[in-house]
Every structure is written in structure tokens, then in C-alpha cells.
């Protein structure tokens, strides 16, 4: 996974509450089995009408400006667990999402894909939306700050999430190398206490 350290970029504003993963990546595209090139389907039903004609929308307009930061509302990415919702925004060019809150699985999926989710209170999100509307924002994960012109705002992120993004870990490989022995020890104990979980699966 590509590490995330910092980013200076124009902003895509989607200041709505509950933009769910069905909006971000409509279910019918889940039949596509690649994970590359999905950016064209990002919020597809807001960009193309049922007849296939382009609809004027802030998303394509932001694409032209090269927006890499998305500012949303409350509960962004709620609903379905589809990781395509992160793959589509990343392929579209977004690597940082600022919101009042996130759907929890979407937020976890961001961390697996080098996308930084930042939570601020509603007033701060609104302030950043205003400041970033026509210019650029800078996000620094090392310093845990978002900068808009002269304004510097600290954000909170757990040490664990921050480290994962900064190092761009391959999570599975990291777990295997760091905790392989601990997993075996845990399973030995669980097998002794709950042997029924270690019976052959009669399928």
C-alpha cells in the first residue's frame, strides 16, 4: 500500500449527510471484478443520466481541478461494506476525506487503501469547506494538521491508524511477521478451552 504523509490539493465539496456507499458506488457495478479503473463509476448516478448523458455536477468539475481532498457531511460512507467505495474514490484521485463522521466499515477500508479519513466537528468542517472551496487545502499526517492559507487546524487520529498510513503497511504481512507466534499461542489456548471450534467442518 502506498504510504500517506501529506497532500496539498483542491477540494471536492459534497456537503451532504449520509452519502452512503450505494451512492458512492452503485451496486450494479459490483459485478466488475477489477479494482483498478473504478473512478469512472464514483457517484455514477449523479454524473450520468439513465440514457448515458452527462449531468452537470460538482464531481466532474472537481476532477478537472484535480481535487484530491473530499469534504463531506455526516456519516459519509455509511451502509454497505463494499470496498469498491474506497477503490472508486482513490482511482478518482481522492486520498483524503474530511467529514463530520464516517460509516465505520468505510473508514476501516480507507486505512487499508492509503486514504486518510479525518473527523472534525461540524463547525470546523464548514470552515474548511469555506476556506477550501476555491483554493487548496494542505493535509499533513506527520504533524496531524490541516492548513488553509494562514489557518492551521490540528486533527485527531489514533496512533495505530496514523502509523498504518504513514508506513503504508501491507497489513496481512505485518500481522504475520509481528504476531504469527502470538496467533498460534492464542489458538492453542482456545483449542483447549473451546475444542468444538476446532472440529472438522462437516460440509
Amino acid at each position, binding site marked *: 500500500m502506498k504510504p500517506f504523509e501529506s497532500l496539498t490539493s483542491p477540494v471536492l465539496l459534497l456537503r451532504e449527510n449520509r452519502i452512503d456507499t450505494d451512492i458512492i458506488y452503485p451496486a*450494479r457495478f459490483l459485478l466488475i471484478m477489477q479494482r483498478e479503473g473504478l473512478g469512472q463509476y464514483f457517484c455514477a448516478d449523479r454524473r450520468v443520466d439513465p440514457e448515458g448523458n452527462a449531468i452537470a455536477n460538482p464531481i466532474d468539475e472537481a476532477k478537472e481541478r484535480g481535487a484530491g481532498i473530499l469534504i463531506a457531511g455526516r456519516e459519509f460512507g455509511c451502509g454497505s461494506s463494499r470496498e469498491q467505495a474506497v477503490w472508486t474514490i482513490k482511482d478518482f484521485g481522492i486520498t483524503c476525506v474530511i467529514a463530520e463522521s464516517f460509516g465505520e466499515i468505510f473508514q476501516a477500508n480507507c486505512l487499508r487503501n492509503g486514504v486518510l479519513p479525518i473527523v472534525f466537528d461540524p463547525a470546523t468542517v464548514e470552515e474548511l469547506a469555506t476556506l477550501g472551496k476555491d483554493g487548496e487545502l494542505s493535509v499533513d499526517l506527520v504533524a496531524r494538521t490541516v492548513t488553509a492559507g494562514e489557518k492551521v487546524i490540528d486533527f485527531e487520529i489514533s496512533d495505530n491508524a496514523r502509523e498504518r498510513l504513514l508506513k503504508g503497511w501491507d497489513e496481512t504481512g505485518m500481522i504475520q511477521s509481528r504476531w504469527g507466534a502470538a496467533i498460534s499461542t492464542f489458538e492453542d489456548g482456545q483449542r483447549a478451552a473451546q475444542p468444538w471450534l476446532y472440529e472438522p467442518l462437516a460440509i
Partner: protein
Amino acid sequence: MTTASAPRTLYRKLWDSHVIEVVPGAEGEGEESRAALIHVDRHLLHECSTHQSFEALRSNGRSVHRRETHLAVPDHAVSTALDRLSIAQDDGAAGAQVARLASNVAEFDIPYVPLGDARQGIVHVMGPELGFTLPGITLACGDSHTSTHGAFGALAFGIGASDCETVLATNAIVQSRAKTVKVELSGTLGDHVTSKDVALALIGRYGAGFATGCAVEFTGEAVRAMSMAARMTLCNMAIEAGARIGLVAPDETTIDYLRGRPLAPQGAMFEQAADYWRTLASDPGAEYDRTVSLDLDALAPQITWGTNPQDSAPVDGTVPGAPEDAEAARQHAKALAYMGIEAGMPVTDIAIDVVFIGSCTNGRIEDLRAAAAVAKGRKVAAGVRALVVPGSMAVRAQAEEEGLDTIFTEAGFDWRMAGCSMCVAMNEDRLAEGERSASTSNRNFEGRQGRGGRTHLMSPAMAAAAAVTGHIADVRMLEEIPA
């Protein structure tokens, strides 16, 4: 600090028993770390969220850590047509996705229930049915409605495709310990009022984000009185309140349900397991981060009128007017415009084009019995297309043994094969632009059941009542059918 003797919630007990190692790192000033590597005991897989997981295993040269902790089945994209096996090869992208699952599970030797197997069904219906879901375990699946399995007192949560790969390779995942919400349900449910109505009313009252990221435990005598199917509906809908986890403490209802299930422990080992399961309850005095309550005595059947599961209203009510908050009012207006309805109209004036009975929320035999009881002796209203999609082929077989299929088909319902169907609208079962459904599924999001489709969520009995009347109807008020 939590000490060994401090009273613990059920969630905390389950969490503690699966921590492999606490991951250091402050989450907030002065707090102990909530992050830990936790063990994942069981993992369900379906065709739609795992192709990239297997691809990651392959490209990194990794193997599956313990094959017998996984179980795969196609459900999301499969056709529900009666002749689906003969059309499977021609089923375009959906067929290709199911074929990919089959080749992936063969390559990695994952236990698999294929299309055409008598056990095939929606992951969250089939897992419990087979006894793959057990109390006290952690269970993950690349699907947000994995919270369903919490009805057994399991820590069950949805994950993305990358995490599915990690679980396949390690049976472990880094997670942060969730905050806890206790839901106290008092009183008893009236006739034709179900746990679906409880879920919709709860989300309506406290908001769709009220439990975001939390573990929600449902408590109270009403929960004790619920069947496993009803508890699964309740925990299934916990994700619609934003929760990571829904939980019901296991009891004799749980244990009786599991006894004799093919993948549950057998004989003496079952009794040994059951003794452990009986210890899985929150201690008296255990502290939750938040407690909410709902009295069920006066609860009416609920429906949703908008595009958010919190947009619920009692069936004997009206479409609510605009809220005072400006932003909320804007969203209210947008939802009404999308849904093509007006504030103040009685919800029973809303005419329906399509009825969908099924899904991991309400596709179990108890749900079909409730719908059939309403459909019996009645006819689907003119102009209404009505589908019954059993949650699993076992549910379908049981329904046929009870003659429910005859009741449905004589009433004019379409009797289908098992799958996710019109809940996720990945196959041919979907709404056309502007069509309006009465649906027993879980999400009324814009476009969820098809682009431009309008979804009203409700219970199976209420959906059946909508089918036979052609509009949203109070199932309690239907005229008696002469015997």
C-alpha cells in the same frame, strides 16, 4: 482500568476472550489503548466481496491459515429464477462472478456450498441454519449485515475485501474496542407487530447514526420472548443505526435452536459448549457508554417514508412535516421529492408497484409464515408485481413442506429461488426508475433497489398487506377472510 472483578458487558467479555494482543498507542488523552489484534473464529464468504481478497492471497503467495474456519456461498448476484441453473453459464457478469468464487474456493480449498446445493442461501440466513454461527465466537464477513449473527451472542461484524484477505491468511484483525449501547425494550409486542417494527421505531426515534461504530446489546423481556429469527432481524438492522455489532445474550432459545444443526458441535461436546454459552451475559451493574429504551406496548407496525432508515412512521400515521432545523428540512424536502410523496398524507394512501418479501433481514421461515398468513385467501392487487424470495433453499423447502408456496402462488406472488435479490439489486430483480416498492429488506437508500427506485421498508406481514391492497396498509385492519 477494568479489573478482572469489575462487572463486564457481554460485549466486553466477548472482546476480552478474543484479544490476541493489545496494540499500544493512545486513542485519546490518558486513555488506555482500545486497539487490539483480535482473533476471528469464523468467516463467511460470498461472490461479491472476495474476488480481490483471493487475488491478494495469490499475488502475495499466501496460503489460508485454517481452512475450516471459512464457509463460502454465492448469494448476492445469483439469479432467483426457477431455471437459474440452466441459465447460469449465460448469466453474464453475475455468472462470471459466481464462477470466480467457485474457482477461488477450489484453489484455496475453502468449504463451499455451491448454487444448486439444497443448503445454498444468503450468508446470514445459511450460516445460522447450518450451525456455523455459534455463541461466543467472533464472525466476520465482507458484508455489513454480518451484525445479524450477533443474535446468537457472537461478535459478528462486516469487513471490506482487504480485511477478508487478512482473515483468510491470519484469522486475525486489528480493531478498536467499540463503545457500548444498551437498548432496553420494555412491554410486549402486539399482534402483527414484529422485531422489524422495533428496529425501525428505534432508528426513527434515536436517528440512523445513533450507534455509529458501537456494539449494541438488545435487552428486556421482549427480547427473551423473541424467536431466533426475530432476534436476527433486530441485530441485522443494528447496522442501519450505524452499529458495528448487534448483540443478544444467548439463552435456552439459542441453545435449542442450535442443537442438532449439522455444523454445530454434536453430542457431549454440544453440552460442553452450551455450558459455556450460558455464561455469556452482561454482569449485573455492567456499565454501558449509553442506554436507550423503547416501550413496545403501544408500538404500531412501522413503515419508512423517506430515503434513510430513520424516516419511519407508524402505519396509522402520516408522512411527517418538515423539521425545524434548516439542514434537516432541506434533506426532508429532498427525500420527499425523491419518493414522490407529500408531507401530511396518510401513509396508507401511498400506492405500491412492487412487493419484495425476502432478504437477510426478513427471509426466514417465520417471516414467510407471517406473510403467507396475510396472503392466504387473498389476491395480489391488480398492477402489483409481488416476489417472495426465500432467504435460503432450506427455507424454501420448509415453506413448500408447509404449503406456503401454494398460498403465495395462488394469491399471485412470484415464488423464487434463494438469494439477496431485490435487496441489493445486483441481478435482474430490481425496480425500474420511479417504481415504488413495499420491501422487507433493510435499506431505503436512493437507488438501492434500482436506479430511481423508491423503497418503503416494513415487516413481512405488512408487505403482504401492501401486496393484496395495492397500497401501504395496516395489516391489523384487513378485513377477515370468511372461513
